[in-house]
């Protein structure tokens, strides 16, 4: 076995009698950003939950930094895997800094208080997400995009070898989406193994080193964005007709979805 921070080996998950994941395998290396793509209900969120031990696995194993997730306590997992949730309750009037500081929970003992390492991690997370100027504002006063950044900062403050993101850009405008992914990209470049479920295929292609295409709980395709994003795989997975062209500006694949009935023609392919 490799010493990859994250190894998902042939994992199956059954929820309510239905098999949501069937034999999914995936690895993420240090410094790598892996994009998890696929239609709604493909099992992306369940896979992320399985990685952090949030759902029991029926078969297979998740290994984080060499240790099986099922043998770790919640606290030990919290020191190894951080998650940016799609949305979360931030309704209580905590300040931005307090909310981000909660990312350190797993690192602080029951009777302890944050030490210099914790303070440094919090400051670094605030800086990376450009939240310093908002640090003392109540979370409830922020816009949706700013709150999403708070969630990202909280996960960064956890300072874990593995970072999971569940649709981090789903509710963001294009500017905030780009900024979020730039931050995630930078964090990955610094040595974190990041796995992000992303709906926007163009953004996924642009920022991820590798893509894993899930459909009906199965890995349909995995590899370079260029090899995963093809008309054939997308037609299979999304049950939609899509044209994949090349974006000259970003030098990455561009996906144009078309209604299922229409057939792509030569001129649409540009």
């Amino acid at each position, binding site marked *: 076995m490799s010493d990859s921070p994250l190894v998902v080996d042939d994992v199956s998950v059954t929820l309510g009698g239905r098999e949501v994941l069937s034999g999914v395998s995936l690895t993420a290396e240090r410094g790598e950003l892996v994009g998890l793509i696929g239609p709604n209900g493909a099992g992306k969120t369940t896979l992320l939950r399985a990685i*952090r031990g949030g759902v029991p696995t029926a078969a297979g194993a998740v290994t984080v930094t060499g240790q099986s997730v099922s043998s770790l306590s919640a606290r030990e997992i919290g020191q190894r895997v951080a998650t940016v949730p799609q949305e979360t309750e931030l309704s209580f009037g*905590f300040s931005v800094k307090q909310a981000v500081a909660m990312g350190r929970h797993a690192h602080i003992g029951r009777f302890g208080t944050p030490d210099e390492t914790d303070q440094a991690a919090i400051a670094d997370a605030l800086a990376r997400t450009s939240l310093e100027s908002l640090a003392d504002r109540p979370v409830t006063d922020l816009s949706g995009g700013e709150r999403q950044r708070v969630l990202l900062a909280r996960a960064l403050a956890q300072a874990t070898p593995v970072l999971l993101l569940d649709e981090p850009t789903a509710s963001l405008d294009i500017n905030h989406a780009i900024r979020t992914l730039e931050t995630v990209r930078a964090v990955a470049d610094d040595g974190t193994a990041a796995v992000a479920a992303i709906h926007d295929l163009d953004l996924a292609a642009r920022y991820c080193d590798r893509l894993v295409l899930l459909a009906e709980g199965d890995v349909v395709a995995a590899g370079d964005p260029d090899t995963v994003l093809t008309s054939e795989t997308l037609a299979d997975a999304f049950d939609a007709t899509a044209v994949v062209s090349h974006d000259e500006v970003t030098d990455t694949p561009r996906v144009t979805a078309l209604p299922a009935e229409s057939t792509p023609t030569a001129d649409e392919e540009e």
Partner: protein
Amino acid sequence: MRVRQRAATWSLGLTTVLAVAITLSAGIGPVRIPPETVVKILLNAVSVPAGIEIAPLSVAGTLQLPVPTLRWRPAIAFPVDQTAETIIMRVRLPRIVLAATVGFALAAAGTVMQGFFRNPMADPSIIGVSSGAAVGAVAAIVVPAAIPFGLGLRGAAFVGAILTAFAVYLIATEGGRTPVATLLLAGVAIQAFLGAVIAALQLYSGEGLRAVVHWLMGHLGNAGWSDVTITLLIVPVLFVILLAYARDLNVLLLGEEAAAGLGVEVERTKRLLLAVSAVLTAAAVAVSGVIGFVGLIVPHMLRLVVGPDHRVLLPAAALGGASFLVITDTIARAGATEIPVGIVTAALGAPFFLYLLRNREVHAL
């Protein structure tokens, strides 16, 4: 570091408020005693260890064992009026200390329940603790023969409270998971059911009706030191456990999924918080009856003032609850005829809370 300082500052300030409230309250009553006399009497009651005595203890008749015991002596001896001292130490202080302890327990449990349920309407009795205590107490009054083991009124109330909380927990738990929404609804249903039981018992209570109504309204009167001791021993221990989980409670406010991701053992933490809060509430309700409002409104008041961080809020709310109940109980007993303290807590607390609500920017909960 900053959090600890804030917690310490607020705790110190609110302890001072409590000390002042206790001193003033002890002076108020049919016999007025000036505060400085009260302070002298209270200081006279402070004992310090004066040395170790070796007292011979005979074992089995013949063998003599030297046993060291601490000898205590009063630290200070102000000359004070004996009658005043008796009134304060034997009559008023037990009741005041009981009020402080009950208020402390109810406000602490209420704070935890509101955070736990992420619901502003949550109070200490939300999982049926008060209703269970009421059934136990009313049964003890109406059909004393039905209470086994000579538990007495308080014992029956305490056991009723704990059994009810446990039943609600079991009903709401499936496969090791206790969803908060299920727990809340199970609590509401059980409270409604027990309400019917209490009403039925009242209907057939006959001679005992006055005693039943008196208990149900909440009361702190006729408290002696023996009533206070057990509650005074239980409450601080349980509070320290809750305080140790204050940061987990903060994280739980983000939702259980997020809390698990941040390293909280969610189900285990929930079980512990529930159990400790239930015992804390039961210990209070068993001695004082159902005193509403303290556990619901005091946490909100303090949350508006000190913010949502439980490391600061929990001690602040508990101390605030203690002062609040000491003050309201003093008002309840200050008039010509004593009124149930529950009436005073609601009548005074609600307007004050509404005032805070209007004058503070309320973000959420």
